């Protein structure tokens, strides 16, 4: 490809005045029979090569940085995933501990209630036995207070039985309520 001589002169002047040269692969296709324009083409080609070299270096740097960023993003995703898994595991462990604690508290409560009931029943049985023995003693010793002790024994026994059933009923109620809560 050849330019008109006037165009060649204008291009040479442009390069001299403002350092603006032809760029790109087009330079390699242009020919001239004039030495001044041949020199111009050589300078333009050298400029173009220098610019391409710089651009190539910058592009390679950007490419490397992009690859690093991609690697770091992947690493970040992996860490986030691990963190999420660890959080889930911690949540499960926390739930298990809370359940264990709840069971432990309930067991302690039941044990306490059991002890109270046991003591209460022993007291009731003890009082019943003592009063019954007193009644038998009064009957066999021919005491004049036999009728009074009989009525008292009857009343007391009634009260003791009522209280026993009341305690047992309360315990059964608490146990039933706890089971319902667990099922929920």
């Amino acid at each position, binding site marked *: 490809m050849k330019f008109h001589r006037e165009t060649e002169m204008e291009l040479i002047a442009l390069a001299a005045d403002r350092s603006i040269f032809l760029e790109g692969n087009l330079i*390699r296709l242009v020919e001239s029979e004039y030495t001044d324009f041949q020199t111009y083409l050589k300078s333009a080609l050298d400029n173009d*090569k220098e610019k*391409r*070299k710089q651009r*190539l270096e910058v592009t390679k740097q*950007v*490419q*490397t940085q992009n690859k690093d960023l991609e690697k770091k993003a992947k690493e970040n995703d992996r860490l986030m995933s691990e963190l999420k898994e660890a959080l889930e595991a911690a949540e499960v462990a926390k739930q298990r501990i809370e359940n264990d604690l709840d069971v432990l508290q309930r067991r302690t409560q039941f044990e306490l209630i059991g002890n109270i009931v046991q003591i209460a029943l022993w007291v009731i049985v003890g009082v019943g036995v003592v009063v019954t023995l007193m009644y038998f003693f009064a009957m066999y010793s021919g005491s004049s207070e036999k009728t009074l002790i009989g009525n008292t024994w009857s009343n007391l026994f009634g009260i003791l039985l009522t209280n026993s059933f009341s305690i047992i009923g309360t315990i059964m109620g608490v146990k039933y309520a706890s089971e319902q809560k667990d099922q929920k």
Partner: protein
Amino acid sequence: MINSILLVDDENLFHLVFEDACSLLDITLSLQSVSSADEAEKLFKAWATNPSTRPECVFVDLNIIGSTFDGIELIRRINTMYGNGVVIGIISSSADQDEIGKAALVGAQFWIVKSDDIEPRLERFREDYSKYADKTQSFTVYK
């Protein structure tokens, strides 16, 4: 110098690297770049009827993200469905021996390993190019 080259690669930054490297090494003055295997196949379909603008040499990436098939499949299709004798090969950051074997089987003529320093490999390829064009060069891996 190679008359015209087609580059098929999903990485647009590599288009710039390849263009500058080709220009600096005087490999070609005419380079067309596309980002997907589907796009490349469309071009080859068009060139089957009008081969005037068909490239002389094709560089294909192995894993072309965003395409419905990979580089090896593209080479197979070009060689079997649009067989027009272009010099064709893979340019990839991978150097997996299995993939290299597969590429050779489907008719790839070369495998260039993409790295930060691609120029020396392209220079060696340029020196061997005439042998690729007349089909006397055996499959070569440029590492």
